[in-house]
C-alpha cells in the first residue's frame, strides 16, 4: 500500500486509496475521532514540504499532502488492527534479534513510563507547577519531572535486566519459534494491497 502511494502521481488514485483505507479503518471498528488526530502530523509536515515547491500549483500541493496522509493511514490501519508483538515478530524476518527485542521491551516500557509520567504531571498541575503561558516555569518543572522519570526508568531497566538474566535471556529469545510466520489469514490484506499497487501502476 505504501509502495502504491510512493509510485503514483495521480491525485484521483490517491484520493481513492485514502478513501479505501479510511473505509477499512471504519470497518475494523477503529474510532477515527480518537485516532484521526494522528493523521494531522503527516498532513502538517507534508504541507511544509508542499508549500516549499517552486511551481506551487494547487494540485501538486494537495498531491504531496494526500500522499503523506495516505501512507500514514496505511500504517495507522496496521498498528490499530494488529498487536504490537505480532508486528515486531514479523520484523524478526528483516531485522537482527537485538533490534526486535529492543523494540518489544521499548513498547512495554513506554506504557509503564506513561503511567509514571501521567502521575507526575497530575502532581505538577495540582501544585500549580504547569501553566500553558508560563514558559520558564514549565521548562524548569518539566525538566525536574523528566529527571525524576529518567531516574525511575533507569531503575526499572536495572530490575528488568535482573529479571531477564534470572530467566536465562539470550538475544533473540523473545521471538523465537514459528508463531510469527505468515498464515493463510494474511492473504486477504496482501492481495488487496497488491491489487491497489497494480491498479496505480497499470492505470
Amino acid at each position, binding site marked *: 500500500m505504501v509502495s502504491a502511494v510512493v509510485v503514483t502521481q495521480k491525485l484521483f488514485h490517491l484520493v481513492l486509496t485514502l478513501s479505501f483505507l479510511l473505509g477499512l479503518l471504519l470497518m475494523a471498528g477503529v474510532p477515527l475521532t480518537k485516532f484521526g488526530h494522528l493523521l494531522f502530523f503527516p498532513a502538517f509536515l507534508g504541507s511544509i514540504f508542499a508549500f516549499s515547491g517552486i511551481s506551487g500549483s494547487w494540485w501538486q500541493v494537495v498531491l504531496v499532502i494526500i500522499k503523506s496522509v495516505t501512507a500514514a493511514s496505511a500504517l495507522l490501519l496496521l498498528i490499530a488492527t494488529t498487536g504490537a508483538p505480532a508486528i515486531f515478530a514479523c520484523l524478526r524476518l528483516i531485522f537482527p534479534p537485538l533490534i526486535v527485542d529492543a523494540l518489544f521491551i521499548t513498547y512495554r516500557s513506554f506504557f509503564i*513510563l506513561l503511567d509514571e509520567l501521567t502521575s507526575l504531571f497530575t502532581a505538577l498541575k495540582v501544585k500549580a507547577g504547569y501553566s500553558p503561558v508560563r*514558559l520558564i516555569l514549565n521548562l524548569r518543572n518539566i525538566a525536574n519531572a*523528566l*529527571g525524576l522519570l529518567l531516574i525511575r526508568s533507569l531503575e526499572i531497566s536495572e530490575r528488568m535486566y535482573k529479571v531477564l538474566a534470572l530467566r536465562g535471556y539470550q538475544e533473540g529469545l523473545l521471538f523465537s519459534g514459528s508463531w510469527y510466520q505468515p498464515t493463510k489469514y494474511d492473504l486477504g490484506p496482501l492481495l488487496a494491497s497488491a491489487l491497489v499497487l497494480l491498479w496505480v501502476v497499470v492505470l
Partner: protein
Amino acid sequence: MWLVLGFTGTAALLALATLRMRREEITSSLPRLSVICAFMLLAMSVPLGFLPTHLNLTVLAGILLGPWLGIIASFIVNLILALVGHGGITVVGLNTLVVGSEVVLGYNLFKALSRRVRPVLAAALATALALLVSTALMIGLVGLTQIEPSLLLHDHDFGHEEEHGIGVPQEISLARFAQIVLPISLVGIILESTVTSLLIGYLLKVKPDLIDIAKDEGQMEGEKGLTR
C-alpha cells in the same frame, strides 16, 4: 534511489554498532537502551503550551548510552514513530542518519566541552551545536533528494545538463523550505538545549555515576573531593 541509500546507510551503521558491542554488553545494555528509547518517545509527547515543537532528547540519549547504542536507539525511535504515522515509513533510513548524527555529535561534543566548561553548560552547547548541524544536514538532504544521484557522479558541470538533455528536477525551493523550517528549528534548539542541560544538572546532583563522561574527566559539578 535516495530512500534506498538511506536504508543502506542505516543498515550499515546498525551492523557496525552491533558488531562493535560484545554479546554480553548487548544483553546487559538492552533494558537500558529500551527504557531510554521509551523515555525519548514519552518526552516527545510532553506538552509545551503554545510552542509548535516537541522535545527529542537525542543528545541526552547519546550522553547516557554512548554513540553506538545511541544510533540503535535513534533507529528504534524513528521506526516506532513511523509506525504511528509520525514521520514516513519510507524515510526511516534517512531520518535515522540525521537523528543518529545528533546523537554521535552530541556525545562527542559533550565529551570534549566538559573538559573545558561545566558539564551543564557543556550539555547545552553540545545540544545546540548538534541540532544545528543536524538541521543543516536535513535541509541538505532535502536538496539532494531533488537531484538524481547519477548526476552527482557525472564529471560535467551542471550547466551542460540542457545540452545532454538531462534535466535537474528542481521541484522544491530549498531557500523557501529553509525559511519555513529554520525558525521552528531554532525554537526547538533553544528548548532542547535548555531541557537537556537542566536534565544533566539534575542527574549530576542525584545520580552522577550515570554520566560517565563527566565522571571520567573528574569535572563533576560540586563534587570534587566526594567519592562514588
